[in-house]
């Protein structure tokens, strides 16, 4: 009995460790942003390298998410459409809406250091 019990504990412990390791190393973080009332919200997003930013257009008019330096550009997003981009390099990425160029935003991507991955 005790041996069985020990085995079960060991199995459970092993499973937990696997899960923790898996969670820590598997999926990159995702950050959501919204477009509403002709604004990108939040207008500055700070994320670690490897993060996927997902913009959703919650406005009643189409918008685009277009980086100034050409790194990323969405097709026109109608209401509820989404655009995702994974930032695998550090840097500051200014972007705007091609239809309404006064709308501006910025993604600040912190370069990874050491083995810290979220």
């Amino acid at each position: 009995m005790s041996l069985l019990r020990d085995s079960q504990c060991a199995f459970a412990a092993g499973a937990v460790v696997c899960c923790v390791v898996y969670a820590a190393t598997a999926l990159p973080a995702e950050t959501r942003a919204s477009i509403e009332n002709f604004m990108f919200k939040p207008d500055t997003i700070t994320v670690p390298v490897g993060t996927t930013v997902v913009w959703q257009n919650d406005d009643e008019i189409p918008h685009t998410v277009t980086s100034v330096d050409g790194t990323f550009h969405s097709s026109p997003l109608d209401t509820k459409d989404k655009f995702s981009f994974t930032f695998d390099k550090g840097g500051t990425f200014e972007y705007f809406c091609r239809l309404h160029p006064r709308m501006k935003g910025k993604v600040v991507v912190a370069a990874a250091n050491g083995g810290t991955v979220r």
Partner: protein
Amino acid sequence: MAKDEKDNVDRRGALECMIWAGTGVLWTLAGGVPRSSLLGTSEAKAQAASGFTFLQISDSHIGFKQAPNPNPLATLEEAISKVGALPQTPAFMIHTGDITHLSKSEEFDNADQVIGKAKLDTFYVPGEHDLIDENPGTAYLERYARRTQAKGTGWYSFDKNGVHFVGLVNVANLKAGGMGSLGAEQLAWLTDDLKGKSASTPIVLFAHIPFWTVYAEWGWGTDDSAQALDLVKRFGSVTVLNGHIHQIMQKVEGTVTFHTARSTAFPMPAPGTAPGPGPMKVPKDRLRSVLGINTVEVKQGTQPLAITDSDLTKV
């Protein structure tokens, strides 16, 4: 409302009268001085009988599906059906852009089909919603550039009965944080295009975004329009027709008259009265009173242009 017996009606007064009356006011520029009369008076009828008229429509946004108008194709059709009822058949039509909502080919197709029912030569300039196809601007140019031998992003000019019309594009290659933009290449072309024209030639410039800064915070202006306006300041009569803001606004500065048209799809709020320049929701029974087309009349001789705005409730 000033009757036109007086030769020198105060410019601001005439303008204010016209805006107060809303629709159905005919106003003319005589030697640079506006005169106004109400539609239906004998003077207006006499005016209608001479010279030629053309139509301006704008912002049909075919493909838009939300409140206050999920069917902009139907309201465009209503607007076009009013063309036949006009007292004088317009010589042609100008569309000041945002023909479509998402630059999709079926949206262009549907717009063309309905606009074609007016059986009028139609001259287009694109709005920003017309240049969001995958290769931006390709769909628009494929459809509309050849007829007018348009250059660059779609600019061109033509003459009708002694009036020089210039279609300009201020919605391409927009820069982050900016408003509308004409760009150096187009301005150079415009310089050349206007060269040698006598100062008495009436000029009509038409482009999507307003050429004066209606409201910078909403992008309602053109960063480099001052350069274009500089090129036309020597002319005795200049009219600038724009769209984009989905409401009527007028301004007179010296010999230049600016006019923005209503949309045939949905209205937008007055500057600063809403969080953003999105569709303004109005009750269904009010919708047609805030959509419309306008007729621009050219009289021969010294009285160049009269602009009459009609909303969709008028027969």
